[in-house]
């Protein structure tokens, strides 16, 4: 282990800053779309399995809860829908340049280029991570809601309010995500 670890090949990096800034904004943007959609779906699926198993079990002895408690499953599904909405919005903003050149022109809108990439990546993460949390909490609350409803029907609406607050977390994510990605557009040709 030598202390002078200077790199001497032609592919050397000057450090993390160089690595990160050399990653293409298209890569950032598309990963943002993938995270946004994928993590939202993970959260929704987690929530559905948590609430669905309790719903199925409690409905064996108390069949009247079947239809009402599907609302919990719908709330979980809504978090997946937020992810899909965000992914579609972001995917429409990714545009390919008019001309296929090897190097970008000097007067290419680099500011807008990088702004779009980073903006869409973080919008995807905003939506995805908040939807995981929202999905899990709706799932746990929905599981308790099904079981409590089987016991005492008057509890259903009260526990549903807990679930509404839990799914509001997903809405926060998509609102912030839309604000972040609002003015992100990929430039398609050189300025001027």
């Amino acid at each position, binding site marked *: 282990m030598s202390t002078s670890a200077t790199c001497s090949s032609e592919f050397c990096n000057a450090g993390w800053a160089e690595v990160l800034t050399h990653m293409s904004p298209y890569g950032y943007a598309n990963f943002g779309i993938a995270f946004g959609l994928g993590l939202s779906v993970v959260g929704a699926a987690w929530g559905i399995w948590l609430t669905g*198993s309790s719903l199925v079990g409690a409905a064996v002895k108390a069949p009247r809860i079947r239809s009402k408690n599907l609302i919990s499953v719908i709330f979980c599904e809504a978090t997946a829908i937020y992810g899909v909405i965000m992914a579609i919005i972001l995917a429409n903003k990714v545009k390919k340049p008019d001309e296929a050149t090897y190097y970008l022109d000097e007067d290419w809108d680099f500011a807008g280029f990088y702004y779009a990439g980073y903006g869409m990546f973080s919008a995807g993460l905003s939506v995805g991570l908040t939807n995981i949390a929202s999905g899990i909490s709706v799932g746990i609350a929905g599981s308790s809601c099904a*079981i409590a409803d089987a016991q005492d029907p008057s509890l259903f609406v009260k526990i549903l309010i807990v679930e509404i607050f839990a799914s509001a977390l997903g809405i926060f994510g998509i609102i912030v995500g839309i604000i972040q990605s609002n003015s992100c557009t990929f430039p398609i040709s050189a300025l001027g």
Partner: protein
Amino acid sequence: RGHSRWQTKLNRRKPIFRSGTCLFPAVAYYHQSIIQSTLSFTMSTPAPKSGPGDMSMFNVLHGFPEALIRGMRNSFLLDSDYHHLTQCESLEDVKLNLTESDYAESLADLGAITPNELQKKAIEKLVVEFKYLRTQTVEPLSTFLDFITYEYMIENIMLLLKGTLSGRDIDELIAQCHPLGLMKASTMKSIGLFEASAKGYSDLYQTVLVDTPVGKYFAMFLQESSESAGGETKGVLEEVEIEIIKSSLIKYWIEDFYNFVQKLGGETSVIMGEILRVRADTNAINITLNSFGTSLNEPEFRTSDRKRLYPAVGHLYPAGTAMLTDVSDEDELGRVLELFPQYSTIWNIHSAGGGEKSIDDAFYERDVQMLELAFEGQFHFAVFYAYVKLKEQEIRNMVWITECILQAQKDEINKFVPVFSQHAPWRMAKRR
């Protein structure tokens, strides 16, 4: 100077090994075997395949059975049902009232009910529900449910042993066994073929019981009794032998169950651990109380025999059980229990005497309160144990009510402990 104070303390605590490395393995083994031979033989509980999971992962494997059992919680008789039942004049009225409860199907094909028939049908219903649950569960919940059945297996084995000793027919005894603890028919029949001596028991273990899940408790009992077997103790043992065997087996079962539950961790270990600790203490107190007036209470047998029956878990262990060993009558027992507030209230009910409540009733009330509280939390296994025990309490209640109606003793009819009652004393106290 050089080392910290912590380090010098550490160095002072190494009496056995002085020089280092090559001695270490041999010396550690020697040290360990000293510990093992001075303590009683410790039982190893196999670790569960996975934990139950916290609230975000529990429902993956156990969500369906837990929701099932919470649906089954609806089937307990309500205060209004108990009220109607106690107003019944005859057993036909009782049957009519029960057709509106969850017991309708089980009693449909019964002509006239008697308390014994009612008990049998109610237990059969519980067993059908339990078997359905057991088939829907996976590890580690299935092992947990198996542990619940081991208690009934121990009771069945003891019933068969005791019955064949007094010369009853084995088939009649098998019909009386508790259905939750049944083993293979061949196993149960062969239990009746052994004699009640030390050699007989070890033959019984090696040929028959070793294949049953409760065989290891019997092995521990045989090991323990052979360690302490001397000329004089044999005589005492034969007198109260079957009861001692049963208490020992139950003790090992409680300890095994407790170890398993602690290895599960999470909410289950908290709630179920508490339930089992209280159970162990109840057993210790009952053993002491029942030993007054028998040969187990004599000073020379207290430390050797009675102390061995106290479980090694519980709030009373180890200080309380050490004190209980020396207790010779009820006053001393009361003085020991004064030190433990949760048991002193129960003891005061017993020592106040009178026909109102016995100590068993006080224990049942406390148990029902604890088991109802197990239903307050979600995502743990204790609800399964609580359901079985509360259902048993309900069956006891129904049998009590029907017996009182049959024997026309209406003033005793209200001495039962209702389950999930809105009028339970501890619930009413909270409301005030």
